[in-house]
Structures are given as C-alpha cells and as structure tokens.
C-alpha cells in the first residue's frame, strides 16, 4: 500500500509542496518528489533555489514557510521535479555580525553540505564560468547501485599492505595507455598492476569534490598553469569529485566510483579514503561563500573569541569538529561512505584537529574520535590518523584511539630514513620501528597494527628522489623553492639529481632495494607510495600539491626503464605475504612462550646473540616461525642482517632451528634474478657460520 502522505498540501511559487522530514539531512528522493532538509542555528529565513542543470539563473526560488521548520531545520518536499536535471542550493537570511561569528549574506546561493553529487567542475581543468553566482552546485543521486553481493573485505589490519595513490596521477600520463586517463575508469583498467605488485589495499588521496582551480595561478618559473592537484581542500564531504570521473560530464561519477570499488574488492583489494575534515575550501574571512560560511558560520568553524577564523590547518579555517552538529555531519558522512560506497577505511588528514575543542584546545577524550571509534556502522572500518596538525600538535604514539585508531607513524619515516642513509644514532629508533614501535604503542595496550609504517608518502620525496637528492627542488611550484619541507633525511648517493655515473646509480638501486626490504620486514602496516615500485621520480619536488603535470603523473615507461626495481618490489611484497611471522598483531615478548627453544624475536649483531642497541650500523634479528601470529600459525624462522655501513661486514649466524638450514631469500647487493627469491626457490647457504653482507645492503635468510 502506498503511503498516505505522498501528496502536496500547498503550492509555493507554482510548485506543489508539503512539509518535509528533517531527517535525513540533504536531498532525498521520496515518492513523487524530493525531500530537502537543511540546518542553520541562526538563520532567520531560508529559500530553496532550484536550477536546471548548468543553467546560470534559477527556475524557482521557494521560501520555506515558518511551519516547515522544526528546531533549527528547514525541510520541504517538492513534487514533480526532474531530479536528474536538477541542481539546488539555499539562500539564508540572518545577522551580519562577524564579531559574534555570524556572516549571513542573503545574496549568496549556498551548497548543501550533504550534497551527494556536485556540479560545476564536471570535467577536470575545464575553465569554469568565474561569474557564475553558484559555482558548486548540489545535485541529487539515486542510491540504488547494484553491488552484486559485494561488501567491504574486512582483511585483518595487520595483513594490510597499503598503496597510497592519486587517482588522476595514476593514469593521466599518456604512457598509461588506458582509455580514460586520469579517472576512476582509468584506474579500473590498471587494477592488474596493483594485483601483480601484491598490495591488498589502496589509499586514495582526496577524491571528494574539491576545486582544482582553488589558488590556481601561472608558475613564474615554468609558465605552466598550477592547480590544486592533490585536493586537500574540501568543497563537499559527501560527493565524489566529478572531475576524477570519465563520466563526470554525464553526472555519473557516483556509478563510476562504485564500480571501481566493486572491481577492486573482486580482486581482494580494500579501499581507504583520505578524508580532509580539518578545514574547507572556503578559506578565511577573505575566501568565497561556498556553503558552510553562509549557512551557519559559527557552527561549522572554530572561531576566536572575537569572531576570526582559527587556522590550525594552515589553510585559513578550521572545521569545528567537536561541535555536536558538525560531529554529527562527519559521522553521517563516514557512515554514508562505508555503507553506500563499501569503503573499507579512512585516513584522516591532520587528524589532531579532530581532537581539538571548539576553542582550539586539545582534549584528552575528544567526543568525535570516541564516536567514530565506537560507531556501529564503522565498526569494521580501518581508522587511520595523520596524528599531527599545522597548529603544532604532534600525537604520534599519543593519539586518543580507544584501541581503534592506527596512526601514520612519522617516527618510522624519520628514524628509518636516517638509518637507511647511514646514521648510526638512528639504530635505537630503527630497532623499535622494525618491531612495530612498541615504544610508542605497547604501554597503551595497542598492537603493532597501530603503526602505519612508511618511508615515503605523497607529502615529501618519493623513493627515487629520496636517494637522488639532498635538497628539495620545488622551483616549478613558483614559490622560489620556499614551500615544502626542508627536513627530508635524504641522501643523493654522491650526485644531486639524475646521474650517468654507474656507481652512483648502482648505489641508488641498492638503497631502493634496502628501503623496500626494511618496510617489508617491519611489523605494522606497510604503506608504499604510488610509483615507488617502478622508480618513479618527481624531479626532486617534495611538495607536488600544485603540479598537475608530468612531475606528479606516474610515467609507466618506468616499468621498463626500472624493471629491476619493479621485480624487486614484487618479490619483497611476495616475501612479506608468504611469511605471517612478519605480520603479527601483538608485540614481541622477547621470550619463548611456545616451547620452540628460541624467543619470538632475538636481536644480533656481527656476532650472533650479541646485539648493539645504539650507535651501530650493523643490526640483525631472528624471528621464530613457531611464534608467528602469537603462535597461532606455523611459519619458517627468518633471519635478517642489515648492514647500513659503507663497508662490508661479516655476520655470525645464529643456529637455525634443528633440522633446518639457512636459505637466502633476499640479498639487496645482488642484481636482478639473485636479489629476491620466490618462496621455495631460495638457494641454500651451505654450512657457513657467517655471511658476508656487502656495504649498504641487507640479507634475509629463511630456515627450512
């Protein structure tokens, strides 16, 4: 039987309407019409503004009658709309009183914060109409995708291997050879590459609607147009970026992205989204009105006592994350992505901001983080914090987690980069990082999967550049090389930039193999950067945020040029995946608790059972296979000798378990074909009691 309330009760401006329902927020399809619902705590009145798609002038402006307002929510059902051809916005009237936080302007047309598709930037880089009174336009989408039985994969967190990537940069370069370059559809064509590499999770840099033209300018250095390529500046939290979809011009980005997720899941690959809830694209008081500022400035933004914008994000404003209304929006948003897009997890950009109170002070138990940690719909989602912000809060190891949050482990990057380039003082830190950073997490009762281990990410040098440049080279960004971090812990191996010296290039190749190996033998969640598996370079640029150019785009000819890197990357990934002893969820206990005769982990040096804990460049450790995953599964015993010294060293070997012999799985000093061995094909070592580990190289042995 049909509902009895699917008929209009009155007309406004010639349109049949009735009072709507406040929940859900946003625009929802109901029988015969669309339910519009929008919140503002301080608006005195509200108009619904309706456009035909891409038309500059609205075809209707419908004021909400006072009796269509419940609490602070305006809601109305409008009947007989062509929802596929519709764009809608709001106009809010209210006080202009910046000192008290109010910046209402009835002249502005405002986007719905709950808009699930947004028009206006339908095709990437296509010049917008700058005079458009409503540049980012809310649209309506049906939520009836056919998932064909798909659901989030729920891979154990400690088994993840994350590939951080930019959807556009992945296939935009002509060498990608895909039919729809730089899009979700293009990425779908390249899933076999991810599968071949062996990663089981992609972390997508922002794919929510952002404005690539924000702060667009021409680089004085190169004459090239600079865009907001990365997208860490949100226009709408609920909408996928149309410009990243080949079908964006047909407004079908939702279907295109969902199909990508479904196809990735079919190949056993999880999808984590990089979410940017710390600020919006509206900037500070000089910025544009897109949505939040004109709807309810005081609610959505953290303001100083005299009404200015706090800037803990470094981007002009700070989302007021622990205001209960904003908290609700963030929760609604993540639930929507988890349920409607089957997203497996989220990485929160500058997540420490999410733990700040409305006055900016850090909180011990932030309600937002607690809500996310215990949410029934997000309960199987991975939650990963970038545990710092631009306001000086640094919380690696201390992010309020309730046992649910993992962290981008910045200390892993810093310590391991130093160790990799031969700084003996980093050895103590490296030991902790290899074990999953128990110094940061064990005392809080958090396991190794709290640590996302990475040497490179989108922010900073890529791996090839880490071993090719001592300093950043960001001239192309047009800021006189003043942007980007100066602290890179990199080493150019003797020559700045590309080199024709075979010795330099051989050393770089070895350092890249060392980096892959260190990541793959460390406890915790390894994360690699798109392109590092094929020696991609960003020409020394460590801050490519504005480079929608070959500097950022993945050059697929690297696969051939750097075939040795690609083969090694695949081999080292396969090695990790073959050995559960590298993927424990609990920390080591440094004792034998299964009766194997050796502890779960033992540290060694150039002498067996004789480790130096600091100021050394020669470290070795043995992992007992019988202790794999807390003794719940059986694995081979592994031994790893790390020589970051510039001279060769002999490493005395501990005895392998009775009845087994050591075999060589990885030797980073060797060339392709002998550097990493497939499981089962590892050559035996013979009866040697000592191995010689070449300068700046790593050997990994397996006992069988």
């Amino acid at each position, binding site marked *: 039987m049909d509902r009895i309330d699917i008929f209009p009760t009155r007309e406004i401006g010639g349109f049949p309407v009735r009072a709507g329902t406040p929940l859900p927020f946003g625009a929802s399809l109901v029988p015969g019409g669309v339910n519009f619902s929008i919140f503002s705590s301080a608006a005195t009145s509200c108009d619904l503004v309706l456009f035909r798609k891409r038309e500059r002038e609205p075809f209707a402006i419908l004021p909400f009658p006072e009796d269509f307002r419940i609490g602070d929510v305006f809601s109305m059902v409008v009947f007989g709309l062509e929802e*596929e051809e519709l764009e809608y916005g709001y106009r809010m009237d209210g006080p202009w009183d910046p000192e008290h936080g109010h910046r209402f302007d009835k002249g502005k047309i405002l986007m719905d914060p709950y808009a699930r598709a947004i028009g206006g930037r339908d095709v990437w880089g296509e010049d917008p109409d700058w005079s458009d009174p409503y540049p980012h336009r809310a649209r309506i989408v*049906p939520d009836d995708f056919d998932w064909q039985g798909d659901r989030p994969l729920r891979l154990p967190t400690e088994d993840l291997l994350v590939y951080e990537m930019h959807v556009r940069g992945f296939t935009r370069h002509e060498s990608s050879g895909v039919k*729809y370059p730089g899009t979700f*559809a293009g990425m779908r064509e390249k899933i076999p590459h991810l599968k071949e590499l062996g990663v089981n999770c992609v972390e997508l840099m922002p794919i929510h609607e952002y404005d690539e033209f924000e702060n667009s300018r021409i680089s004085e250095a190169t004459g090239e147009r600079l865009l907001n390529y990365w997208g860490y500046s949100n226009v709408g939290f609920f909408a996928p970026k149309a410009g990243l979809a080949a*079908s964006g011009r*047909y407004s*079908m980005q939702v*279907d295109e992205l969902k*199909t990508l997720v479904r*196809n990735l899941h079919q190949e056993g690959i999880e999808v984590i989204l990089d979410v940017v809830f710390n600020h919006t694209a509206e900037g500070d008081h000089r910025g544009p009105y897109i949505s939040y500022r004109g709807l309810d400035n005081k609610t959505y933004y953290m303001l100083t006592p005299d009404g200015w914008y706090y800037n803990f994000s470094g981007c002009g404003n700070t989302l007021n994350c622990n205001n209960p209304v904003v908290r609700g929006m963030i929760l609604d948003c993540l639930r929507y992505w988890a349920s409607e897009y089957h997203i497996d997890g989220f990485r929160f950009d500058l997540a420490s901001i999410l733990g700040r109170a409305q006055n900016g002070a850090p909180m011990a138990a932030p309600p937002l983080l607690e809500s996310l940690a215990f949410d029934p719909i997000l309960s199987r989602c991975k939650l990963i914090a970038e545990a710092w912000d631009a306001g000086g809060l640094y919380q690696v190891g201390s992010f309020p987690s309730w046992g649910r949050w993992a962290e981008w482990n910045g200390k892993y990057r810093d310590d391991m980069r130093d160790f990799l380039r031969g700084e003996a003082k980093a050895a103590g830190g490296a030991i902790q990082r290899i074990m999953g950073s128990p110094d940061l997490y064990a005392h809080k009762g958090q396991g190794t999967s709290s640590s996302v281990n990475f040497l490179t990410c989108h922010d900073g040098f890529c791996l090839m550049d880490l071993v090719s440049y001592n300093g950043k080279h960001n001239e192309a960004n047009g800021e006189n090389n003043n942007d980007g971090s100066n602290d890179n812990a990199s080493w150019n191996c003797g020559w700045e930039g590309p080199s024709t010296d075979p010795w330099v290039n051989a050393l770089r190749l070895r350092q890249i193999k060392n980096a892959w190996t260190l990541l793959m033998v460390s406890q915790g969640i390894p994360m690699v950067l798109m392109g590092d598996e094929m020696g991609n370079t960003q020409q020394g640029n460590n801050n490519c945020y504005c480079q929608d150019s070959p500097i950022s785009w993945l050059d697929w000819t690297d696969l051939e040029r750097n075939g040795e890197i690609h083969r090694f990357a695949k081999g080292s990934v396969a090695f990790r995946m073959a050995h559960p002893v590298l993927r424990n969820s609990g920390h080591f206990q440094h004792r034998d608790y299964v009766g194997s005769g050796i502890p779960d982990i033992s540290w060694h040096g150039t002498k067996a059972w004789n480790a130096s804990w600091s100021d050394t460049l020669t470290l070795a450790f043995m992992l007992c296979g019988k202790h794999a995953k807390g003794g719940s599964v059986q694995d081979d015993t592994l031994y790893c000798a790390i020589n970051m010294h510039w001279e060769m060293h002999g490493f005395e070997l501990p005895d392998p378990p009775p009845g087994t012999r050591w075999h060589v799985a990885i030797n980073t000093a060797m060339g392709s074909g002998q550097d990493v061995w497939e499981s089962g094909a590892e050559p035996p070592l013979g009866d040697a009691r000592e191995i010689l580990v070449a300068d700046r190289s790593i050997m990994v042995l397996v006992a069988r």
Partner: protein
Amino acid sequence: MSDFIATFENGVVKIILEGKLDALAAPKLADHLKTLVGQGVSKVVFFAEKLTFISSAGLRVIVFAKQKMGADVSVFLIKPPQEVVDVVNMTGFEGFLQIQETFEA
C-alpha cells in the same frame, strides 16, 4: 524520449529506443518491462541506433532488465552511438549487456 516501440515474441523482448533515455523516459520503460516479468523472457534487445543519450536512470532500466526479468536473461544493446557506449564503459555497466552491431534472433 518519444514513445518507445516494444514487441514480445518467443521469449524475446525487442525495444526500439529513440532520443534520450533519462529520468523522464526511464520509469515508463521500466513499467513496461515489469509487465513482462514471469512471462518467460530470455532476451531483452534494445535497438539503440537512434538513442542520443543514456543517463544514470536509463542505465538502471537495463540493470533491471538483466536482474529482474527472469533467470539467465541476456540483454543486448544494438548499434548504440559512441557516446552511449562510452557512458556504459566508463561506469562499468558493460558487464550487464552485450553490445552488438546487429541482432539475429
């Protein structure tokens, strides 16, 4: 979209599409297909040479044909214009239908 032309014979539904298959046109087509559920449909053939555009709602009718018309129904799209093929491919709906130049019963 002007009215579509539909026939049903020997388990084969043939539909000639013209103009835009969008949110305005799709419900009517879906309603028609619903009347054939349980009638032993084995193939649904959309003749698309004169189709100019297919929207999200239009694609959903095709999914409906594939999933709800009966077990093992094959869906064909005959001679669609390139723009329609692109939309189908970009959004990943190609798995639901077979795109062909002609249809021989």
